[in-house]
């Protein structure tokens, strides 16, 4: 059973950050979740991270020749976008291998985030 969704006036304001992650070994959604939370908790602390309302929404695997590239969308609070971007920047390692996160853009809805930044060329989502 799920809680009824809040009316629009009581909802938290959100932004959706589109990111791409290039890594030496393949990543999946769980790996991304653990790295992003761990880096944010270490950098900003527990109290500040609780204000972000972080949520990794979806992750897509992108075909690439020599690297493993994934693109995804992160949901965060509207007022804390800069702090989340800073935490994403600071992710550098996963299981001893190098990884890098770039933010492609920020938007207010999931649909426009996908349309503008996650361009799928003949790919199945």
């Amino acid at each position: 059973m799920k809680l009824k969704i809040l009316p629009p006036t009581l909802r938290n304001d959100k932004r959706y950050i589109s990111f791409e992650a290039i890594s030496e070994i393949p990543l999946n959604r769980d790996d991304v979740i653990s790295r992003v939370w761990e880096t944010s908790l270490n950098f900003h602390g527990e109290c500040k991270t609780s204000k972000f309302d972080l949520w990794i929404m979806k992750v897509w695997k992108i075909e690439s020749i020599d690297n493993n590239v994934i693109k995804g969308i992160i949901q965060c609070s509207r007022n804390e976008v800069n702090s989340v971007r800073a935490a994403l920047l600071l992710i550098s390692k996963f299981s001893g291998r190098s990884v890098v996160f770039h933010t492609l853009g920020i938007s207010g809805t999931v649909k426009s985030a996908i349309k503008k930044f996650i361009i799928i060329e003949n790919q199945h989502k």
Partner: protein
Amino acid sequence: MFFDFHVHGDSRLALEARRLEYNGVAIIQSSKKYSQKKSVEIKEFDGDFRIWSGVEIYARNPEDLKKKVKKFRDKEDILIVNGGNLKINRAACEDPRVDILAHPYKNRRDSGINHVLAKKASENEVAIELGIASLIKTRLSSRARLLSQFRQIIKMHRKFGFPTIISSNAYSIYDLRTPRDIIALARCFGMTVEEAEESISKNPVNIIERNKINTVVKGVNIIE
């Protein structure tokens, strides 16, 4: 005047609470292992430090909850309902005989309270409890998630006005914290000083005062 309304233990814990400058505690028994004799034993009146007794109800479904509330309401000063399940949360908020709904966010990803439950809780004057014990025992991401659940509850409290209570849910002396420290912590997760002080002083007193008046339905009291 500071009170801690969710302490599991015996008189040793109450002595420690008195040393930490609380003015009263409520010693809570679980409804699974309830003994009437213990409830009478621990009620003492020692100067300006008072001990009340209460029971924490573990219910499987709303019908079970109603039976247990009916059973324990006349015997105990304080009734706490163990929250977490949405149906139990809803049934507890709709029942004016319940005093406190404890940790509605337990084992959940959301906060357990939405605008519907908040409105019912403020109409029936059911207090929502923010438990410090789970903050102390968790680390890292579960602690961050707990803090955002607390923020959500405080946001609902500001909009709808149900009473909030902060308590320690202590099982040993290592779980108790002084009242001023708890106010300082409450300011970190978004409460104002007035809201935090109300949660550990004024709201517990209101619960006790309300239970002294023998109420049948809202607006109808039995005087004799």
